[in-house]
């Protein structure tokens, strides 16, 4: 951060003063790094501003004492600034959301310090934010998440049976987990897949079976460094996969919010012209069928166009024309 305005500097100084006083002093570089306070600005503010601050009648015994020597700062007579600052509802909200998100990831026995910290903050702020907010990162994937967490901690290789949504089939793989994350209500593992010989994303609720192996892996630093933001994972780079252009009526605009797209333009008619990357034909088939026959396929590779859409619909309809399984005939009642 280069230039801070007066409010940014005030926020930082009010945090720096009690911290330095409590520790009996701190180095300039430490303060600058912990509080994101540019070193030059920090020295100016300590020497030229804080030095002049105090209470009536502003005689030397009523002023803050700042002493800097060899890059080490000591502050005294600054009790006026030791009052803890109130967290604003927004700040409280961000902490509660972060805390509750991580609580979901951690097991209950790992929660101690975080839970205590959150409770103290909630009690001290007198704010009702904690009770008002609920965070669910991913539901119903708890069992697999625990096994994956453990494997990641131990660098243990796993064998999984996985339902591939894109291929609409189940297969077995050996994987080394590199990171776990939650997105849009599901937990995912980014892992090195020995079958694919590369990093792949696995949604935990699609893992049908998971077993520990006796093998361990050494994490590859290059892979670890290649990780981008979670948003990037689900947004393929242009040109890497085929794409289709759809014309969506206004009421189907949710698709733009929901799925990664390269471009979305509203036409004069009010319809949206959107270009979507197609990760797999099965993904496109589902989208087209859900949207309905009136959505126009403006542009698509031959294998993913009108014929493709018609054939997928036909294959499902065929199922309805065949003998429909009747309840209570072939099954065991649950």
């Amino acid at each position, binding site marked *: 951060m280069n230039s801070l305005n*007066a*409010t940014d500097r*005030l*926020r930082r*100084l*009010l*945090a720096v003063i009690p*911290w330095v006083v409590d520790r009996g002093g701190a180095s300039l570089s430490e303060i600058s790094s912990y509080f994101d306070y540019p070193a030059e600005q920090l020295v100016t503010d300590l020497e030229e*501003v804080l030095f002049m*601050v*105090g*209470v*009536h009648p502003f005689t030397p015994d009523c002023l803050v004492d700042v002493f800097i020597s060899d890059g080490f700062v000591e502050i005294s007579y600054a009790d*006026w*600034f030791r*009052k*803890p600052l109130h967290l604003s509802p*927004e*700040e409280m909200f*961000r*902490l509660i*959301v*972060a*805390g509750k*998100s991580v609580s979901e990831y951690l097991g209950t026995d790992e929660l101690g*310090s*975080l839970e205590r*910290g959150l409770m*103290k*903050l909630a*009690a001290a702020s007198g704010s*009702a*934010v904690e009770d008002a*907010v*609920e965070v*669910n*990162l991913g539901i119903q994937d708890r069992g697999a998440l625990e096994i994956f967490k453990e494997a990641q901690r131990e660098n243990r290789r796993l064998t999984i049976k996985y*339902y591939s949504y894109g291929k*609409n089939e*189940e297969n077995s793989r050996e994987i080394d987990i590199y990171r776990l*994350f*939650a*997105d849009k*209500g599901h937990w995912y593992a980014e892992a090195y897949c020995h079958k694919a010989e590369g990093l792949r994303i696995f949604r935990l609720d699609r893992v*049908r079976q998971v077993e520990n192996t006796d093998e361990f892996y050494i994490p590859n630093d290059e892979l670890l460094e290649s990780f981008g933001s*979670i948003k990037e994972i689900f947004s393929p780079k242009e040109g890497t996969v085929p794409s289709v252009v759809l014309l969506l009526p206004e009421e189907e605009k949710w698709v733009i919010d929901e799925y990664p797209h390269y471009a979305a333009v509203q036409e004069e008619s009010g319809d949206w012209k959107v270009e979507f990357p197609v990760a797999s034909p099965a993904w496109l*088939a589902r989208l087209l069928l859900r949207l*309905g026959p009136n959505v126009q396929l403006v542009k698509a590779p031959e294998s993913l166009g009108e014929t493709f*859409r018609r054939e997928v*619909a*036909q*294959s*499902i*309809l065929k*199922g*309805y024309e065949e003998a*429909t*399984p009747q309840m209570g005939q*072939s099954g*065991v009642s649950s």
Partner: protein
Amino acid sequence: MSKLERLLNLIAALTETSRPITRDGIKEKLPEGTYSDNKESFRRTFERDKEELKNIGIPVIFDEATQGYFVESNELKESGSYLEPDELAALHIAFNLVRIESTGQEDPFLKLGPSSEISKGIQPLTEIPLDPSLNTALTATTEKRMVTFAYKGEKREINPLRVVFNRGRWYLVGYDLDKKAIRNFRVDRIEGKVELGEINSVDSLNQEDLQLNVFPWRYGEESNFKVTMHVEALHAPWIVNYLGENSVKEINTDGSVVIEEEVNDWKSFRSFALTFLDGVKILAPQKCKEDMQAWLRGFL
């Protein structure tokens, strides 16, 4: 005198005093020239300073009786509820693990203090979006204020109960005064401005009433009905786990299952069923089965 110096001296003056001080008293307690001698100009600068202090977490309180100002006493420290180093570190780690969209003004650790135990370059566990209406929804919920807003083209009056992050979206859960039932509203779909009612105008409800309907087909306004469907073996484990064991009506020898699910919004459920392509077949009610076939025929 710089603004920074003026604000620091103002905090010191308001903290040092044991009783409220009037505006003129404050002016006298600060070095000469801190505030203008022009009354109106002094008043305006002082009001701006008060606002600034409030924004950074130091509310300056006005006492009617003495017409004076003061800063609240140091309750936190006295109650011994300061954060221990391990608690502060845990909060730091949590804050670093969760990427919450930011306007850049709300780093709570400037107030709580840094921790030496944070590791830089930590991989995020999740990314949480924020929405312009979220703050208002939160204020309404914490201050128990009724809210009015437009949603799906309709005006809604809601007694807010909770804000919930679910499936990657923020929802406001509240009692809909018109529908006389608890409803969930996607915060990013609230249209226009959210109007806030009086503080404490909403009664609390029982916690068990606050169950968020996790399935979108249960959000609808259609009367509730049951849909039965056949799910082939490839998808059966997932769907049973997702909808819950109670939804299973039949388990077949080939691994397929028959599921029964409550639906308030058929269009949404049809969309869900289609995500399984030919792996799911609607069995009943007949009108839903026929609608699904008609929908598919539309593509031919």
